[in-house]
């Protein structure tokens, strides 16, 4: 089985977000980039499957759509345990463009199982995985919280209202995974870091899609108003504020 894990290259969650170009661009100065946390867990689970030996995993590849500044993210994935990496040399523009670029590589390389995090921690579009499955015309499963080897094949679990369902899929397929798919992301060990430099990282030219979305402007959320304490005896003031200022009553 060939597994592809799609990696988003996203700002570290503690990044102080700033904009440039009068609010039309994200200011990337000083931003520390990380693997999108959902994708990192997907990678962790893929490695666990390979290591378990309960299903034959021939190779785990990772793919990112991005410029050269995304390569440290790919190499970290290689250090964690992926076997090979791909970078599609294009700035990620929107979910469709990213899904399209992934689909081109997925077709060329004939992956059996494609894992995508359910969303990315930067734009939280939650659309790439589904779009990818549609473009490839592969079956897909969303919000997967468990991948289990059973008698040499895989079963998947999803949390549903009031319980959990277990399903199987014909391969090739796209799995859109959520947190819980693996317990903790792995920390790259020294040996993995040393080996990462010898693993293949292939740069691919982008396919013919620039996406459908035009970014018009960014703005930061309004700063949170400071906390106000109201005397417990003054319920009238509390109701007044909730009704007229917070407008929640």
């Amino acid at each position, binding site marked *: 089985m060939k597994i592809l894990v799609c990696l988003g290259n996203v700002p570290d969650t503690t990044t102080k977000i700033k904009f440039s170009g009068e609010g039309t661009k994200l200011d990337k100065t000083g931003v520390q980039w990380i693997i999108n946390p959902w994708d990192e867990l997907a990678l962790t689970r893929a490695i666990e499957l390979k290591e378990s030996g309960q299903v034959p995993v021939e190779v785990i590849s990772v793919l990112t759509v991005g410029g050269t500044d995304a390569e440290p993210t790919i190499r970290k994935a290689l250090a964690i345990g992926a076997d090979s990496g791909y970078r599609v040399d294009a700035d990620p523009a929107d979910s469709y463009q990213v899904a399209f670029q992934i689909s081109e590589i997925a077709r060329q390389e004939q992956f059996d199982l494609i894992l995508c995090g359910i969303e990315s921690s930067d734009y939280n579009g939650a659309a790439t995985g589904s779009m990818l499955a549609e473009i490839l015309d592969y079956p897909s499963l969303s919000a997967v919280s468990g991948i289990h080897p059973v008698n040499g094949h895989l079963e998947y679990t999803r949390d549903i209202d009031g319980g959990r369902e277990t399903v199987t899929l014909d391969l090739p397929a796209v799995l859109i995974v959520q947190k819980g798919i693996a317990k903790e992301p792995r920390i*790259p060990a020294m040996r993995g870091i040393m080996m990462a430099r010898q693993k293949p990282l292939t740069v691919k030219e982008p396919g013919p899609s620039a996406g459908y979305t035009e970014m018009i402007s960014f703005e930061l959320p309004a700063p949170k108003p400071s906390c106000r304490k109201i005397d417990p005896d003054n319920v009238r003031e509390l109701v007044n504020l909730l009704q007229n200022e917070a407008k929640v009553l």
Partner: protein
Amino acid sequence: MQNKTTVRGGRFMVQATSPADVFIPEEFNEEQRMIAQTCQDFLDAEVFPRLDDIDHQEEGLMAGLLTKAGELGLLGISVDEEYMGFGQSVITGMLASEVLGSAHSFAVAFSCHTGIGTLPIAYYGNEKQKAKYLTKLATGEWKGAYCLTEPGAGSDANSGKTQAVLSEDGQHYILNGQKMWITNAGFADVLTVFAKIDNDRVLSAFILERNFPGITFNPEENKMGIKGSSTRQIFFNDVRVPVENLLAGRGQGFRIALSILHMGRLKLGANVVGAAKRAINHSVQYANDRKQFGEKISSFGSIQHKLAEQVIKTFATESAVYRASYDVDLLAQEYKTVCTTENPTITAYAHMAIESAVLKVFGSEALGYVVDEAVQIHGGMGFSSEMPVERCYRDSRINRIFEGTNEINRILVIDTLLKRGQKKDIDLYEKAEAAYGSLTQLAAHPVLPEAYYDRKTLFIGHLKELALSLIHATTQKFQRNLIFEQEILNNLSDIIMNIYTSESTLLRVQKIESMRGESASAVYRNILDVTLYEATGEILRSAMDAINSFAAGEEREALVKGVNYWTVSDIVNVKEARRRIAMPLIEENRYTL
């Protein structure tokens, strides 16, 4: 690593260095950054959530953490690949030490294991000893400790009384004695123990295993800080040590102890940078949260001053740590390719003894300032054990004591420099005599170049001239008795330390600007301005302290004239400069330089 002019320890005092010849942290490659991130991820996942448990010495916790660090390969970074390590450069090891240096008691256990616990065997062990012990230390299967200090032998390490006597059958050394302040003693499997064979004048070193009969351990010491670090006395009662466990031959112990301490001092410089950055983050985050008089306290000038000073001192230490570490790598490489030496890396460390001692003292005192002001920024809360800065404060104090006290290291800085001059490793005395001779020809004021970096470079050069003139004056005056004038030696060492660290800051800022351009480097120029302003002020005072302690009449007059000439510096609006240094820290809410 590219070739450059041969570096020699202490040479910075007699010649200029180009920015191209120094390594700056901004040049770390992707792989090194990944190693640093692995160290940080390990701390975030395993160590920081358990700081209280570590300080309570939860049974097995510290040893378990070292085992986990070993599984990630972090214990073998500096060990050769053939012994299960990763054979990384000194500078990469220092980067890992910096990150892990923020981890309070774990940092001490880690440093002890990977440094003094492992490196005596790595550098001085024979093939059999390395195969048996080093491989297990590198992977973390076994933990290491280093037993040098005794109740009557602290700074004067060679006066230890632990004794080794060869058994009648010649198969064992019988060890008797006592060691104290032994880090990792509670769980270490391998002990490097220093003892004198028969009535030798100097020490020998032995490898002991914990389970050798006759070794007993006192309970844990109650300490002011690093409470989670295991520290015990160890007693050796007729311990039979196989003769093959003698390390590097009879009488080699003191040489081993000193060499390992050179390395440990440089490493301590890296450790304190990590600890300082963590304390700065606590400081700014509290200052941005805490409101008084309706404003965040980070908006007040007094707080910005403290934050800026924390940054400046940390930046200067960091600049010097990586400059010195890179020089160790270069020297080691040179010894490997050009010269024949038994151990290139340890010879290179020994060569950088002056810089290592500078970093031990300057770094530990910089951290002392950072944590002290971290508590102050927190106000009353800083005095509460609820806040992390309380632990930062307590844990930092030991850095001025271990790896040789700062008093010993201050003497080492100037004493080693003078010895290098006597041995003609560097042309110190010629330059010192020339500087002293120039005193009578100095104009009232120096002519200053227009260009910013030319001026700063000139100032550093002037400070060196001042130091050299004082070296000449004091060595002439006191001759062999200079060693008994410790206060004056301390003055000279303080001058040398300020020169090395402020020059390192200058070279780093200059290099950053050449990489990123002037507009992106404004804050760095502010740091350089204030660093040099402060260093010049401190050097002026140290120089006057020294001069007033020994010189009189015409000589005093001439030396004071030199002080006035050689301490001319730029007029800096330090209030505005410090505010500009504090601003990015406050905006980012963390140390990002």
